[in-house]
C-alpha cells in the first residue's frame, strides 16, 4: 500500500466494486476526464475513446448504474461515485481459459455471451459501450421490447453497423438473465 501522508485532496471512487483513492495533483488533475483516468492512470483500457466530444458513445461507462460518457466527465467530479466498466462485467472469481475454442468461457456475463453468440460485433470498438448501455437497460427493464433496446442503445454508434445483431443479442441476454 502506498503511504498517503500528504494532505492533498483525494478523489474516492469505487470502480467495479474496488475502492480507488486518487490524489488530486498527483494521479488526477482537475482537467482529467474519467476516460483518461480509467485508461491512462488505472490502465482499464476496455473503456474506449472514439471522439472525446460526447458524440459516439464508445467511452460509455455506468455511474451509479446509469450510462454516462466518460470522455465528457471530469474525474474530480466523480468523488464518491461507483463506476462500472466493461472489466467489471465478467465474473473473474471463476476464471476459466478463453482458449482456442474462443467460446468456452463460462464466466461471461449473459450479455457478453449473447454478443458472441449473435455475432454482435465486427471490429469490436463499440462493444464495451454497447454492452454497458444494454446492461443498464436490462437492470431497469428486464423484459425490453425491440424499441426499448434501440432507444437505450441509440447513443452508441457502431460504424461497422452490426446493429440488427446487437438487438438480437440484447433480446437473448434478457431471456437468459430472466431465467437465471
Amino acid at each position, binding site marked *: 500500500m502506498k503511504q498517503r501522508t500528504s494532505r492533498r485532496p483525494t478523489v474516492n471512487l469505487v470502480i467495479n466494486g474496488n475502492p480507488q483513492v486518487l490524489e488530486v495533483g498527483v494521479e488526477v488533475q482537475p482537467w482529467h476526464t474519467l476516460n483518461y483516468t480509467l485508461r491512462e492512470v488505472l490502465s482499464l483500457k476496455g473503456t474506449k475513446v472514439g471522439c472525446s466530444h460526447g458524440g459516439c458513445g464508445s467511452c460509455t461507462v455506468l455511474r451509479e448504474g446509469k450510462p454516462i460518457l466518460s470522455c465528457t466527465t471530469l474525474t474530480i467530479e466523480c468523488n464518491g461515485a461507483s463506476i462500472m466498466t466493461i472489466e467489471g462485467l*465478467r465474473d473473474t472469481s471463476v476464471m476459466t481459459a*478463453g482458449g482456442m475454442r474462443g467460446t468456452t468461457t463460462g464466466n461471461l456475463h449473459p450479455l457478453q455471451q449473447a454478443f458472441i453468440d449473435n455475432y454482435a460485433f465486427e471490429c469490436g470498438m463499440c462493444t464495451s459501450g454497447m454492452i454497458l448501455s444494454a446492461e443498464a437497460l436490462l437492470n431497469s427493464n428486464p423484459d425490453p421490447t425491440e424499441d426499448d433496446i434501440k432507444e437505450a442503445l441509440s447513443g452508441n*454508434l*457502431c460504424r*461497422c453497423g452490426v446493429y440488427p445483431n446487437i438487438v438480437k443479442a440484447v433480446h437473448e441476454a434478457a431471456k437468459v438473465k430472466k431465467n437465471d
Partner: protein
Amino acid sequence: MTKFHYIGKPIKRLDGFDKVTGTAKFMQDMEVPGMLTGKILYSPHAHARIKRIITDKAERVPGVAAVVTHNDLPPGIDEISGLEPGMVLPPTAVPPYLFRGWGLQPDAIVRCMGSPVAAVAANTEEAATEALGLIEVEYEPLPAVFDAEEALKPGAPQLYPDVPGNIVFDWKQEMGNVENGFKEADLVFEEVGETQPQSHLTPDTRGAIAWWEGERLVICTATMSAYPSLLPAMAAAFKLPESKVKIYGPPYMGGSYGGRAFNEACFVLVAVLLARKAGRPVRVKLTREEDMLALTRCSTRLHAKIGVKRDGTITAVEYRAFLNPGPWFYPPWVNRYFTHLFKVIKCDNIKARATLAPTNIPFSGGPFRGFAYMEAFLVAQPILKRISQQLGIDYLKLLQQSFWRTGDKVPNGPGRYSVLSSSGIDEAIEKGRQLIDWDGPTGPDEYIGAGYCLPGSAQFPSNVILRLNRDGSIQLETGVIEIGAGQYTTLTYMAAEAIGAPPEVINMTRSFDTETQPWDGGQRSERTTYSTGLAIVEAAKELRQKIFNVASKKLGAKADELELEEGVVFVKADPAKKMPLSAVGLPIVATGAFVPDPERPWASGPVVSFVRVTVDKETGQVTPTKLVILNDVGRAINPPVVHTQNMGTLSAGIGYALTEEVIWDSDGRVLNANPQFYHTPTILDVPDFHSEIIEPVDQIGPFGAKGAGEKVLTPTALAISAAVYNALKTNVNTPITPDKLLKALRKTE
C-alpha cells in the same frame, strides 16, 4: 460436391472473447515504456508557402523533447513512389508519390487547411499542446482551387511544379465504336452527377508509436498495408534496407473500411521524425477531428451519355470523369475507377475518359469499402432510371441487361480484360424481386429501388507459413490483421479445412509484423479471403506432403497412399492404420504463396440491394423501411460472418445515400469534422433487413470463395437513390438530404 469438415457452417468468432470482455487491444491501447506524446500543428491556410517558422520558444517549454518541421525531412522524400507490385498505370500517369499532400512537405508548401506544419514531442500532452501554441509560423498565402474541373482550366492555381496543368492521370479508352453506337440509338440520355467525400470515421483513430534502435526503425501502427506500402516507403525515406524497418500492428484494428489502406506514410512519418530527434519512442494519436481530415472517399464528378434503342437496347456509352483527390493523389485508385466505369453498364461500345486533378480540399481521395466502385456506379447507374421511365421499361429488366455474366470478357484496367469466372447475378435478382415484393403494392409515400454492383478486387500477393509443433498443434503465420471482418476466424478455419486438422489446434498469429511474419498484400479490396486463402491452401498442400513423408515410414505405406483428416493421418485403403498428428514427432515448416496473375480468370461476385423507403415530400426526409441484400460470395466460409458484413456495410450505404458528407467552406475548412455533425447512422436509423448469400460454383477462389464485405455499400446507396428517383422522377446527388430533396421537388412540380 466436396464435403467440408469445418467451413461453410456457422462458426463462433475467435476474437469474440477479447472483444466482449474489453481485453482486445487496439492501436489506442498500445504503449511502449518511456514513450512521449506527439502533437501536430496544422495549417490555417488551404494553400500557402511557409516563409518562416520559429520553434525556439516551443523547444524551451519544460518537458518538450523535440520539435520537427519540414526542415527535418529526409531529402528526396517527395520523389518516393508507392507503386506496388502488380499495379499497372498508364504510361502518362504521375507516380503515386506517397509523401505528398497532407503532411510535412519538403518544399515548405501547405496544400490544404489542416495539413501538418510542425510537430512536438513532450512528456505530457499538456506540455506538447502548450509548445504547439508557441510555434510561430509566417505564411505567404497562395491562391487555392477546390474543384477538379476548375483545377484543369488554364490559369488555375498549380499544386505541384512537376505536375503541369494539375494533370496527374488522364486516360481514354474505347471499346467497340461509340460513334457508330450513338448513330444506332433512337434516344440519347445525358446526365451529370457527383459523389461526395465520405469519412471512414473508423472507431479508432490513426495512431503510431515509433522509435529508433540505432539504425533500426521500429513502428507500431494499425495499417492495412504494412508490407506493400508503408514498409517500402519508410525504408526509402530513411535509406534503410526493408529488413531494418520493423512495422507491427496491435492485435486488432478498430475499423478500417479502406481508410487505413494506402496513405499512411505521411502520418506515420511525423512520429518517426519526432522519435529520431527526441531519441525516444513517440506516440502520435490523432484526435477524431484530425483523423477526419487525413483521408476520405474521393470526390468525383461524372458526365455520362447513353444511347438507347426504343426496346431498351443500349448502343453506346460515353463517360467523362473528373476526380478530386485533394492534394494527396493516388493514381492506382483512378485506375480502378476507370475500370469500374466500364463495368457499370454492359455494352459493346463504351468510351471513357477520366482525369485526376489534385486540389486544395482538405483531405485525400482514397478507397472506402470498395476501391472506387461507389464513385463509378453511383453516378453512372442512375441514368438507367431515366431511361426506364421514359421508355416505360421495367427498371429491373434494364438493369439485368447491363450485367456482365459468367465468361464475359470484362475490361480490367487500361487496355486489359479479364474473364469473369462465375456470376450469381440472375439468381440474386430473382430472389430479391420476390423478397422485396417488387411487383407488389406500395404504401402511401413508399417507393422501391434496386441497385447493383460488380466489384473488382485489386490483386496483391500473399504469403503464409504453417508450422507443425511437436504436440501436433499448428501455427498459422500470416501478415494479416483482424480488421473486424472475421479474418482470424475465416483463415484459421480455411487452414483447418485445407490441412485436415481441427481448428482448435491451429493458432493464427495476431496481427502483422514485417520482421517476423510473411509478406501480405493487406486487408484491402476484399482480397484476404481470396488471396491469403489461396496461399494457405498451397502451404497446406506442402505441409501435408511433408507430414505424409514422415508418416509413411511409421505407417508402412507410401506417402501418396496417406490421407489426413480431423488431425489423424491414415492409410486410405486401410483407415485402421492411423496415427495422430502429435505422433509425427517432428517440427515441420511449410510455406505457400499467392501471386496474382492477370491472365487468370477473375473471381468477382456481384451484389444486389433492394430497398423500400418512405419519402416525406413535405419535409424532404427519406426513411428506409426494408432492405434486402443478395451477395454472391462464391462460397461463404462462415455464413453468419458474411451476413454480419452485409449488414454492417449496408449501414454505411444508408449513411452515404442519406446523411453523410464532409462539408467544407470557401476557404477549404472542414466544418463538420465531428461525429455530432457528421451523421453516421445510429441504431434507430437502420431498418429491417434481410441478407441472402448467393453461392454459384466457382473454380477459382479457395474452396470457391470470393470477396464478401465491402461491395454491399454501393448497391445499397444505389437502391436508395433509385427509390428516391421513383418518388421525384429526377436524380438527386447523394447525400439526399432534405434541402436537396425539397429543391428537386420544387423543380419537378
